[in-house]
């Protein structure tokens, strides 16, 4: 666990909350502005303790594929998010796991309620742990990696076409 000065800690927590809210509200242009050019977005199958690509993951996006994901969401004809899910997530247990130079590894837990309005109208519950790698840049904090380990990732999951 890294000990940080209070303003830095507040900046990091504010970033994690902002990232969550932009994702909740499907504000993908603004969300994408938060990521670095080497962003890696990963939703592993089971614990994220393997090298991505050596076995299949739900999501294993480099920056280019993440761009495709966001462009697809922006087409207006991505049925899986047409209309977009109504979502709210609660982020808690934020811990600064490490701080090295300009980079911070941040762990948090989340619970996300999704109203899947596209077909079933079901209220879907997603829960897990997010690990952010944040980097301080001249534009402020940016996200270089986000790993999302879902508590139930080894069971079949419903559609996950939004940013979790």
């Amino acid at each position, binding site marked *: 666990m890294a000990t940080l000065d209070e303003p830095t800690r507040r900046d990091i927590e504010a970033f994690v909350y902002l990232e969550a809210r932009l994702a909740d509200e499907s504000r993908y242009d603004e969300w994408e502005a938060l990521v670095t050019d080497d962003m890696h977005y990963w939703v592993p199958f089971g614990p994220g303790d393997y090298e991505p690509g050596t076995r299949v993951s*739900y999501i294993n996006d480099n920056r280019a594929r993440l761009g495709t994901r966001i462009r*697809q969401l922006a087409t207006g004809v991505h049925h899986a998010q047409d209309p977009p899910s109504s979502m709210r997530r609660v982020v808690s247990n934020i811990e600064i796991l490490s701080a090295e130079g300009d980079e911070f590894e941040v762990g948090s837990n989340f619970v996300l309620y999704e109203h899947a309005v596209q077909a079933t109208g079901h209220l879907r519950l997603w829960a897990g742990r997010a690990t952010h790698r944040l980097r301080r840049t001249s534009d402020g904090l940016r996200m270089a990696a986000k790993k999302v380990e879902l508590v139930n990732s080894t*069971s079949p999951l*419903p559609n996950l076409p939004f940013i979790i």
Partner: protein
Amino acid sequence: MALTVQSSPASNDYQHLVQEDRIHGSLYTDPAVFADEMQRIYTDGWVFVGHESEVPEVGDWVSRRLGTEPVLMVRNRDGAISVVANRCAHRGTTLCPQNDGNHRNFRCAYHGWTYDLDGTLLGVPGPKGFHKDTADLGLDRPGQVDDYRGFVFANRSGAAGPLSDHLGAGGTDLIDRTSNMSPTGSVRLSAGWIGQHIDSNWKMWPESDNDGYHLNLTHASMARAVPDTYYDEIVMTGEDASASVTRAYDGGHVELDFRRSYTTELAWLGTTREKVADYCEALEGSYGPEKAKTIMWDGPPHALVFPNLFLAEMNIARIEPVSPGVTVHHHTPLLVEGTDESVNRRLVLQSEAAMGPASFFLTDDAVIAERMHRAFEGAAVGDDGWVDLSRGLEREQSADGQRWSDITDETTNRGFWHHYRDVMAGVVGDRHNRV
């Protein structure tokens, strides 16, 4: 409006519910139909279970379903593969609640009954209290288990005839073409399975997975986000412009055949020879230059082996019925052997883009299936609630145990449903309605 319920055909009159150019929507939603399917298709017929490469070592097992029946596919001590019920023969406790593992034997957590890997009962605590011969108390086993090129199938009833009859020429060719993508002729399913939960009937997946008509619209977002995908070249081109064809084979196996549309070698892999040189050389070394060239141009099939095996190009998918309104669509990348791992890394990345609940394609199919299922909830047999499957009926051609037509025609849907009708109505073997 069909309000004359007493004169309507019965909900299990499959000859009426599946017609030449339409089927009734209650086939998706009626619980009585689902119960019939679990018997006639998933108990009386052959069902895909898994691939032998998933259980390479003695004691390796994976958890599967034959219809809704929980089973384990296990590598035995003698190297053969068993399929046994994942249910203690004593009081029915699930033996292995996980997805996969390796055990020396299977021991029930409830009273400690212990089974060998092939399901034979090895021992019970307190044996003096039993007067039965414990040799009769092994795990339930399907009546038939067989494989073709490592693809393991099981039939619970034991009365389905040989697997080769179930596969027929069409299914055999499809599995051959899939297996031949590997330079050794043996594929490897070792990258893990991901399951997609869909709130729709299972039959929407043999249909959707092999529907050439929906690609332009259902997947329009992908075409716009990545305009240069090979799907764009081969199927987004519109009626009459594509050289691809739909095919239906005897036995309900169906294919979207993209082979004629590929304009470059390795188009199906989205790459060129230079990027996967080791793989191409391995294919040529194994098969010779001519056959290797065919494999590199044609790529893997995109096809259903009836009822639940989707050969999804360089993925394998299992369609698992859970209830009338719930299906799990499982997939794993199809990995190849006898070459360096770089091509397999590429295949894992390609799989993550195409398949699963966070992919660029299956997410849209899932929502369409869920909308379709909801539209037929409560559908009763009558004049309303029919599904039209007439597209291309007048222009499709047939010969040698198969039908084919334009890629956008519903030849695949009809092929699936007409075989389904034969199985459900008990007329398989009656060849009058074979192609």
